[in-house]
């Protein structure tokens, strides 16, 4: 190989690497990974055809589940942040930007679509479509890996799993059956669950088509899951909330996919005074796709939205959404 050709290859590789940071953060060790011992996937005890079959097997094994009271239900109070996940290992081999899409994990149409998405990520440095850029919710399963801060509130009859981005709130109906009186699917679907001692087992159905994240495979409207949540403690005062998940999708997967996601206590955030609040998507609204790539509207440009500007009634006193400083930016003509 000539020196010039070698240099060209290095240059191409460097360009691809330089523009592909997200491929790295998509791997285990990312999104808070590296806290505590390596995450290990625990597959289900046998193969199930559907999430419902899987869930009922676990429910029967738990003899109908543990009936917790308000005093016995496991408490996961406080702030939590993501502590890694393994989901990309199911789809990319080896992990990282040098990896390739695993053949035979996804069905042919979903595999073809994902290979194009992965090509964009590796070669162009970005996937040219992200629902969040358009202010759509992360949805499920993306909810499982979204960073920012989380709260998990357990009551005997219901659990509330909260991500402050969006915000995205999942409700787990304990000891109940699925309901879908709306006759449609939604971003977080319908989740039922039961307690098996200190483990929370859930079954989620009726989800809208979504994805694991923008550099991960797409999911269909038949995507379902069975999750097992458990607070684990390790040496060195490591406390980790681990979620073993089996994903089912008859349109997207050749067979069910297993992964583990984790959260750790956000003690650093609590110490910094953070409290969960509603983060609106107004800043996101300034992110757009233009000529095939992501960019942002700037102050003064048409369509710019000022998240700390004023309300629809700027002439009234006290309408600034930045009352501490009450500053202004050049306004653009907002898109309706």
């Amino acid at each position, binding site marked *: *190989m000539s020196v010039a050709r070698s240099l060209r290859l290095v240059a191409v590789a460097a360009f691809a690497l330089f523009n592909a940071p997200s491929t790295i953060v998509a791997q285990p060790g990312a999104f808070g990974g590296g806290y505590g011992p390596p995450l290990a996937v625990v597959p289900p005890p046998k193969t199930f055809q559907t999430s419902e079959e899987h869930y009922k097997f676990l429910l029967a094994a738990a003899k109908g589940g543990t009936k917790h009271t308000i005093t016995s239900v496991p408490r996961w109070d406080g702030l939590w942040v993501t502590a890694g996940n393994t989901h990309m290992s199911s789809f990319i081999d080896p992990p990282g930007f040098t990896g390739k899409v695993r053949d035979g994990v996804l069905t042919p149409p979903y595999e073809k679509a994902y290979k194009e998405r992965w090509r964009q990520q590796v070669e*162009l440095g970005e996937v040219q479509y992200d629902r969040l850029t358009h202010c759509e919710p992360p949805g499920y399963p993306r909810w499982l890996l979204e960073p920012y801060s989380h709260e998990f509130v357990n009551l005997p009859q219901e659990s509330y799993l909260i991500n402050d981005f969006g915000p995205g709130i999942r409700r787990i109906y304990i000891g109940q059956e699925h309901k879908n009186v709306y006759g449609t699917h939604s971003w977080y679907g319908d989740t039922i669950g039961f307690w098996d001692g200190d483990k929370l087992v859930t079954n989620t159905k009726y989800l809208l088509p979504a994805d694991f994240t923008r550099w991960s495979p797409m999911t269909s409207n038949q995507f379902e899951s069975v999750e097992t949540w458990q607070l684990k403690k390790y040496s060195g005062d490591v406390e980790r909330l681990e979620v073993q998940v089996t994903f089912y999708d008859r349109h997207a997967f050749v067979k069910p996919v297993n992964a583990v996601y984790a959260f750790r206590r956000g003690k650093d955030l609590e110490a910094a005074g953070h409290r969960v609040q509603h983060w609106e998507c107004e800043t996101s609204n300034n*992110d757009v796709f233009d000529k095939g790539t*992501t960019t942002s509207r700037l102050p003064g440009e048409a369509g710019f939205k000022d998240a*700390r500007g004023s309300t629809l009634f700027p002439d009234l006193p006290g309408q600034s959404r930045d009352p*501490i400083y009450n500053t202004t930016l050049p306004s653009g003509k907002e898109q309706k």
Partner: protein
Amino acid sequence: MRTTFRLLIGALVASLLTASAAMAHHSFAMFDRSIEKVATGTVARWAFNAPHSWLYINVKNADGGETLWSFEGSAPQSLLTRGISGSTFEPGATVTVSFCPMKDGRPAGGIGWARLANGTFVNPSDGGCDGSVKAIEKWKAWLAAGYTSSSDAQKVK
């Protein structure tokens, strides 16, 4: 052997370039991360918002006019643990920032580090530019030598 060496170099470059955790809901391809620049101005607005914060500063131009520059940083949930809060950049205060400029030439970029009026350096960066301690130390020397662009500083080696 040479192929292995090239792969190793590539992996090293990648690990260095991807050191900062990206919490974004969009890619950073809009920023030219091959160059870092420095600008000084007065704070117009510190939009301490999720999923991205934005620092807006007025920068004086050579012709005496001013341009409002916009710099994208990380989310509050990340910045709070780095000692940056909603009042770190007060309107009217002088601030110096490093940034990777937008590829399309508009007055904006991914923020790296920021130097407050009292001389303190902070790191509000997301994945758009390098605001690490290593980058700050590198730039302290370059700033002392009068450089405001990494490309200019790197020419003189």
